[in-house]
């Protein structure tokens, strides 16, 4: 590696490390996020020649991050078991019960947050992934498609189905709780 290459790539690593870590974490890498991201940056360098002009670096990198996260769970047996592991690692972060989450900066009322996370548990893993990329990570539709290696149409249809399911689940839990105060608080602030 030449000196100039090194400096330029180090800058790319610095610039994209935060979003790469967030992505790995929310896609289920949990405490292995840093290892996953390290692996992804090394592989991204090796495959940089496959990088197309006009393509954005970020979603391309995040796709490698997503793949590395999946590789992490490859040993976890059958698909259902793997998906279970992924969600078990992610759920505590979303609930704010894990160490690395930030209750002080929480923007959502605790009860509402719990309802949302419980509804997310009802989604299929495939639906959760598009919801995670598109909304939790706030990527746009095209980036989401690149990261998850899906056609844009699939992203769109999965999102709309996921939102419908989430809406129904929330309505159900809202009925039983008789309390939507948390929702009003959040939507007022965003």
């Amino acid at each position, binding site marked *: *590696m*030449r000196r*100039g*290459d*090194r400096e*330029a*790539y180090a800058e*790319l*690593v*610095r610039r994209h*490390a*935060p979003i790469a*870590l*967030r992505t790995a*974490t*929310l896609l289920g890498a949990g405490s292995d996020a840093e290892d996953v*991201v*390290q692996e992804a*940056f*090394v*592989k991204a*360098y*090796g*495959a*940089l*020649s*496959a*990088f*197309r002009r*006009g*393509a*954005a670096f970020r979603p391309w990198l995040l796709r*490698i991050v997503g*793949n*590395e996260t999946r*590789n992490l769970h490859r040993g976890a047996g059958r698909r259902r078991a793997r998906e279970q592991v992924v969600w078990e690692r992610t759920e505590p972060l979303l609930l704010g019960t894990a160490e*690395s*989450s*930030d209750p002080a*900066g929480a*923007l*959502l009322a605790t009860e*509402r*947050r719990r309802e*949302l*996370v419980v509804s997310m548990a009802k989604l299929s893993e495939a639906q959760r992934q598009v919801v995670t990329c598109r*909304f*939790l*990570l*706030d990527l746009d539709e095209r980036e989401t498609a690149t990261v998850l290696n899906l056609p844009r149409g699939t992203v769109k249809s999965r999102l709309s189905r996921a*939102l*419908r399911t*989430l*809406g*129904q689940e*929330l309505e159900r839990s809202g009925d039983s709780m008789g309390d939507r105060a948390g*929702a009003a608080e*959040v*939507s007022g*602030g965003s």
Partner: protein
Amino acid sequence: MAADTEHELIAELRSLGRSVAPPVPGDDLEVAVMSRLAEAPVRRPSAAVPLRIERGTRWLAGRRRRTVALVAAILAALLVTPPVRAAVSDWFSFAGVIVRDDPSPAPTVSQPPPAVPTVTTSLTLQQAEALVAFPPSLPSDLGPPQGVEVSTDRRVLSVSWSSGRDGPVRMDQFDGRLDYAYMKAARQVEFIEIDGTPALWFEQPHEVSILNADGTTRRETARLAGHTLIWEAGGTTLRLEGEFSRARAEEIARSTEPVR
């Protein structure tokens, strides 16, 4: 679900995502990545398949592999040099030429094509060949060149023809496996093939600068270039510039052969 409710839900999901404290990347991440890369051997763009397909890179699998390999062959990229700190999305490199997006708007009035700078020095081809570390090539279509020169750092050999049916034509060549030699800022570039070899065609006038061996730009060398074809033959990068059509440029390229 009503649109309002859906908007609320989306806003809540975004809040949920933001409320998860981002893991703070330690300096050791960068250090770890960079030290692992430093151990890896330097890849050369001339490799037939520059991609290292490693364990775990499953996204390269199957039908994508062929596409990726093709793109890889076209964009045999190493990395950008320090003065070219553009985001990766703004550049790529091809056989020792860095191409950047030119963000300036296209001129509204059509301008006359930039003049082709011809070579005024006249070394003999043998003299030039002795100065550079690669075998020069010439297009038989254009006959013997009228000017021959070698850059002071002996990296680039340039020849030109000032008269002939194609008008002024210039051809530069250098060892594209060793270094970047040119930087181009263009709005549009076409990926083409000449007899199965990847090539780039610049139809529009674009800025071209010569790079120093350490990758810094020689600002004073920046100039506007017209129609340009870039291709690679046997590790040598060839750059042909003139007021010809793409078809004619390709024809000249096909007639190009090593002098010996």
